[in-house]
Every structure is written in structure tokens, then in C-alpha cells.
């Protein structure tokens, strides 16, 4: 298999099964996916990297029918409440993108899918959530 890179650096592919990690503020426990200058809740500047659960519940979703050029539609975008903490936005995949198959409160688990290649043949890997 050729080289794989995660689409974003908070998706970890090379340390056990694919999972998400977050920066957790040591002062107040707030979780972040991005590189931080400080904690937006408590203004702290001390963070630790923690793994997040791979299962969760759909707290909100939409089915997008009109998107940027090049993005296949329809697709289901969802906000997922991860078990044990953390909220993440991703697509609900491996099920039809319609309100009959994607629902509020649905249980889901993390999965990955290919997101394109670069000219060197490296594959980008994205994450989504599939019905659990």
C-alpha cells in the first residue's frame, strides 16, 4: 500500500486503530482540534493531547444538496457527541444521505475513507461516522 496521510492532523492513522485526538486544556478540560495560542474558556496555555472515543451520538445533521463545485452531493454533515467528551463535525457515511437513514440521536462509530491522491501517489484519508 502506498503512503497515507490524514486529511487533518487530529485524525491519527499510525497509532492503533484510526481515532481522533484533541488538545485538552490542563486548566479546565476544554477540548480543541486546532493549534492553540490559549484556552478560550479559561485563558490557560497548557494543553495535553488526548485520544477521543470512536463512538458517539448524532446531535445534529443536515443533508447538503448544493455544495462547492467538485463536492459530490447529496451528503450528510453531522455534529457528533463523542462518548466521554468532545464534539466533532464530519459526514455520516456508508448509509444513504437522506433523513430516512440519518437521524437525530443516531449512534455512530468513526470510520475512514479515501479523500484523493497527490501527484506522488500519496493517499489522503478522511474520517466520517457510520451507523453503529
Amino acid at each position: 500500500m502506498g503512503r497515507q496521510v490524514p486529511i487533518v492532523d487530529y485524525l491519527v492513522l499510525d497509532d492503533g486503530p484510526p481515532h481522533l485526538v484533541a488538545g485538552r486544556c490542563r486548566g479546565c478540560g476544554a477540548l480543541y482540534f486546532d493549534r492553540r495560542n490559549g484556552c478560550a474558556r479559561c485563558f490557560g496555555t497548557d494543553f495535553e493531547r488526548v485520544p477521543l472515543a470512536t463512538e458517539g451520538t448524532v446531535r445534529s445533521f443536515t443533508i447538503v444538496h448544493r455544495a462547492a463545485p467538485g463536492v459530490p452531493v447529496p451528503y450528510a454533515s453531522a455534529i457528533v457527541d463523542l462518548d466521554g467528551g468532545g464534539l466533532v463535525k464530519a459526514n455520516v457515511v456508508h448509509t444513504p444521505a437522506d433523513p430516512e437513514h440519518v437521524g437525530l440521536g443516531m449512534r455512530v462509530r468513526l470510520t475512514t475513507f479515501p479523500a484523493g491522491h497527490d501527484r506522488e501517489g500519496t493517499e489522503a484519508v478522511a474520517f466520517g461516522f457510520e451507523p453503529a
Partner: protein
Amino acid sequence: MDATGTAAPRDETAGDEVWVLGAAMTRFGRYPDQDLIDLGAAAATAALADGGVTMADMDVLGAGNLYEAGSGVGQRLQKQIGQTGIPVYNVANACATGATAIRCVYMAIKAGEADMGLAVGFEKMGKMGLLGAKPPSGEAEAFEPSGRYGSVMSVEGRLGTTLMPGVFAQAGMEYAYENGGVGFEQFAKVAEKNHRNSTLNPLAQYRKEFSLDEIMGAPMMAYPNTVLMCCPTGDGGAAVVLVSGERLRSLSDEQRARAVRIGASVMTSDPWTEGDQVQPDVNTLTRQAASRAYEISGVDPSDLDLVELHDCFATAELIHYDNLGLCAPGEAGKFIEEGGPERDGPTPVNVSGGLISKGHPLGATGVANVYEVTTHLRGEAGDRQIPGARVGLTHVIGLGSACCVHVLEKANA
């Protein structure tokens, strides 16, 4: 409050209050032959004339615009309508831009640095389609993580959506998740109401009524928002002249009779909440702004005769019924089902047609809703007049986020 429960009339022109003296807006729409400054000038000169004043009377100008931000829109505007050397504040604050321009003028008057000022919100968008939807940039040479998320490509559409119809759909669906009685039909009823209301408003971009079936059956943008549940892009301008209570005392009887008191002018941004950095939380900052506005003005949501709130999408309006305290907590679905926000309901919402039908030239909206409520409080809203309107509220939200709430009150005789 006195013993009968009615607010005691305050001194009509308390010196430290701020009043709306003049107000105007262009009809929102598409004007290929008018540039941005034409739109701003039309609104500004009409608002000045409406207030019986001129640029010579202005001590400050607040100019709100997004798409040409950074080009000195205020100075470009005054070069067409009157250059008197006053301070100009060019403001950009997402969809709360127009209200931010009002805030600048309001604060200058409250600070004692101005007696009278002009706030203009204007935007030229034309037919822009889906905002923020960039085409793909082609295959990368070699993936290189970049940015604060170490991304190797655009995540839009791959890791959920950040485009407007989807973001506001998600906001509405989260309310549905947390509360019963809310689904596609309740959201669609919001749009049905606003399109129907717009038929009475000659300044609305669109003035066409649609049945609930037509709205739900229209092309889907981001479930549950169909295209008829989304605001259009367009061009337009709106302007208000504000005056201090002290200065108002020296103006004519007609100016004083038509002046509208600003009972509260509040701005908030989004405080940290879990998830706000993943999906914009448009609720907390609205609740905080509304609560503060009710506290400052002494007005209760049940006192409001009309509300012009930020219905960029039908899903947004519904959750703001709850955020603004227009309905009992969790009962926004029940509120629309029972006709609460209808013209003849307890709290008419968006009788102008709202952003959905009146239009949403981004920088203009936060001034246009103040124009609308002012017009009703003056009894000058024609066919769409809410009879006997005495107190109204305006609300705008710009993603990022910024929220502005104004409480406006008719002068007591």
C-alpha cells in the same frame, strides 16, 4: 413599573438617551446600474431628509459594509453626499455589520462626543450564489499539512459543511434534537409566513406568497432548508440618523413626535461554549444580548408589539423565538404551530418579510430592521402596519460571531 403593571412614562427626552430621528432604506433587490455608493447615498440622503436634517448636522458617520471593506466605504460615501470632516468609522462585523455601524454612532452620542450621527449599512452583492463555495484547486503536487488543523486539502464537504445553509440547518436540527415538536414542517411554516408577509411590503426584494407544499417541495439546499427557506443575495442600503435626547429637545414638534427612543442597544460576541468552535453557537450570544436588552430597557418580551429578527434561514428564525424569549423555553415549535409570530399573533415576527423575502444585502440588514420597527412605531408602515405598535425589538447575528439587539420605543406623548 407602577402598581398597575404598566411601565411609568419616562421623561420624554431624558438628556442621556439616544433617539432615532430619521430612517430610510432602498428597496432590496438587484441593481446592476447602481454601484455600492449609489445604494448608500440613496439610503443616507433619504434618512437625513426623513429626519429633517443635513450632513452639516452630523457629528459622526458609521459606515457598514462587508464586500468592499477596507476600501474606506464611509469616506467614499461622504465624498458623494457631503464632506464635513467628521469622524468616520468603517465597520465590518459579518451580518451584524449594519447594527455595528449603529452602535458606533450610538456610543459616540452616549460618550458625549456627538449630538447627532448617521449610520449607514450598504451592500452590493448581485447574484452571488452559494457564499464561500470555492471551486477545487486541482490535484496537489504533494500533500503538505498546513494551517492550524494540519489539513492537506479543503475539508469543506469532506468533514461536514461550513457553508451557510448547512450551518443554519444544523443549528435548527440541534434545537429539534433537544426539544420536541420541531421538524421540517415547522421550519417551513416560518418561510411560508415571511413570504406571505412580504406581499404587504413594497421594499421587499421578493413579494410572492408560496404554499407550504411549494416551500417544502422546492429544491433542497441543505435539509431541511429548501431554496425558499433561504435568504437571497442582493443589493441595498439602509440608514438611520440618531440624536441625543438633549439635542432632540431643541428640534421641531414634528421631529420630536416622530422620534423613536432607543431603549437598549446591546452587542455580544459568542462566549466559549462546548462545541462553539465546531458548529457556531448562535444561541448563547443571542440569549445574552436579549437578556441584557430587556434588563436595560425594562421591557419584557411579552411587551413587544413586533420583532424583526435574523432569519437568514427559516431554521434560524425558529430557534430565535426561544433565544429571544418570545416563546416558552423549548416551545418554538408550538409557538409557530399556534400562530404566535403571525401578524395577528401575540408577537408578530418579521412582518417585513424577513431576510428570507425582504432580502439580505449583508451590511444593510442590521440597519434595515431598525428602519422597519421605527416605521411601525411611527404608524407609517402602510398596509403592513401592526396597529398601535409602541415597542419593538431588532436582532441580527453575524457568524464568527456577533449579535446586536435593539429595543425601540415610541415616544410617550
